């Protein structure tokens, strides 16, 4: 029988993978994918809690998360595009003019 704990384990793993991707990936697109993983981990939590505790609140929240994740991704990709235009690379380690 699949219970709440199984869903929480999956979301915790997804969250950890997202954080690792952000820390280890040097490609800006890879970093953004890590962020998506974190948002989806939170989404799974909301849906799982909503199902096992009753009520629809969690599922509604997840719908909002999906929409905002898309909006955020669109903005982030536009920014990566402008980075590529200015630096001819999307390696986040080579974008380091501002220091101190």
């Amino acid at each position, binding site marked *: 029988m699949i219970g709440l704990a199984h869903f929480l384990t999956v979301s915790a793993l997804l969250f950890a993978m997202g954080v690792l991707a952000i820390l280890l990936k040097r490609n800006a697109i890879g970093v953004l994918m890590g*962020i998506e993983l974190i948002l989806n981990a*939170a989404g799974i939590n909301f849906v799982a809690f909503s199902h096992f505790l009753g009520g629809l609140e969690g599922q509604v*929240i997840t719908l909002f998360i999906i929409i905002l994740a898309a909006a955020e991704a669109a903005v982030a990709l*536009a*920014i990566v595009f*402008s980075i590529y235009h200015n630096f001819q690379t999307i390696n986040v380690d080579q974008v380091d*003019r501002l220091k*101190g």
Partner: protein
Amino acid sequence: MLLSDLKLFAPELVVAGLLLGVLILALKPRSWSFYASTCLAGLALALVALAALAALPAQSYFSSMVVHDPFALFCRAFFLAATMLAILLTLRSRELCGPGAGEFYLLLLAVLLGMMLLAGSNHLLMVYLSLELVSVPSYLLAGFLKRERASSEASLKYVIYGALSTGVMLYGLSLLYGLSGSGSFEALRRHFSGSSFDPGLVGLALVMALAGFGYKISSAPFHFWAPDVYEGAPTAFTAFLSVGPKAAGFAVLVRFLFSSLTSQPGPTGTLLPLSPWPTLIAILAALTMFVGNIAALVQHNMKRLLAYSSIAHAGYMLMAVCLVSVTGLQAMLFYFIAYAIMNLGVFLVVIVIANATGSEEIATYQGLWVRAPYLVAAMGLFLLSLAGIPPLVGFVGKFYLFKAAIAGQLYWLAVVAVINSAISLYYYVYVLRVMFIDPGGELTPLRPPAVHTAVLAVLVVLTVALGIFYGPLDSITRASAHLLGS
């Protein structure tokens, strides 16, 4: 039911209408000053709509998603005023004169709408939505100068740090939802004041949620984005960022902690935290003050120095949050105003100088005293106010904070704050020394445009006048330091 709720939402509706109006106007290219005056007129209308709400009793609306109370009213008025000042800062700027004026003000209004919603958020979903409404347009505004490498780098760093922090926060909020079974602050408070709960899990959820709030107010250890973003972004937007969204972050942090993790006031009016969060916030406050002030000592770029200074000021304001008292809240609201006046003043001087010299390096400020004595005198006044020298408004703000900390018997934190004020004096005076004493080669007089002179004059008068006659502000902030249900 819904229609009467809309009445409470009128200021936000005006801002949203203005936003749509700007969107339509932006179909044709128009000048920066055209949009600025349109926005100023619209925001003045929103202020009037807000003033009409002042007499209404505190209540929640939109199915308890948003609340109307003195605290939210004060914050919304503050955000409107701060945005109007920031719009004045965008005029006659060297950076902001190219195409895309409509888009700039459109995004700025979206951030304002998000800030106003943040002040009244009463549900985890509202917190997340309005925080994103503040953040996402901010990423674009930081990278608004898309031909400049610094600006696009600033926006990349901002979007990565920002999205990570809000993602971690959202995960923490999902755990809070799972613990209480509802996202509303009332349900959270019921849950935490009733049955036994796992303090470890609540602590974990709280720390994760703090990542999002901490990033918004640029508190250590979530501050790493701030120096780079402040330096790379257009200066007028940096000024706005250091005042508006930071205060919005404080407003939502206070509402979240006071409405969901604090007991309802007892017969004596004392508030009791339901988990040891004040200790956590106190440690963050001390850490933030030290990180900001010590890193500011070695800066060569004025905007970077102001970034670290704004981190340090976030530390002072956090001190007010961890007191869990009305006195603390009042001190925080007073500091919002004081900080906005002096910080926008400093940034305006930085804009004027950069318009003339094209640089924000402190080394290029040498000998400015000869070129623009009034400008440099104004800068000196703002910097001394930031350092907390009497009789300026920054001193009164700090005095309220320290007094509240001592009244709350948080003596060690008050001592830390005093030590930090002393450290901060060093780097503020260092900038003054460069401008007043160091000789410079250039001697041609530097004349700021009329609009800048007028705004500067108003800010100088406010810095001095509110430092001496702080009575009215005292009564306003005292009346505003009340949240619905606490």
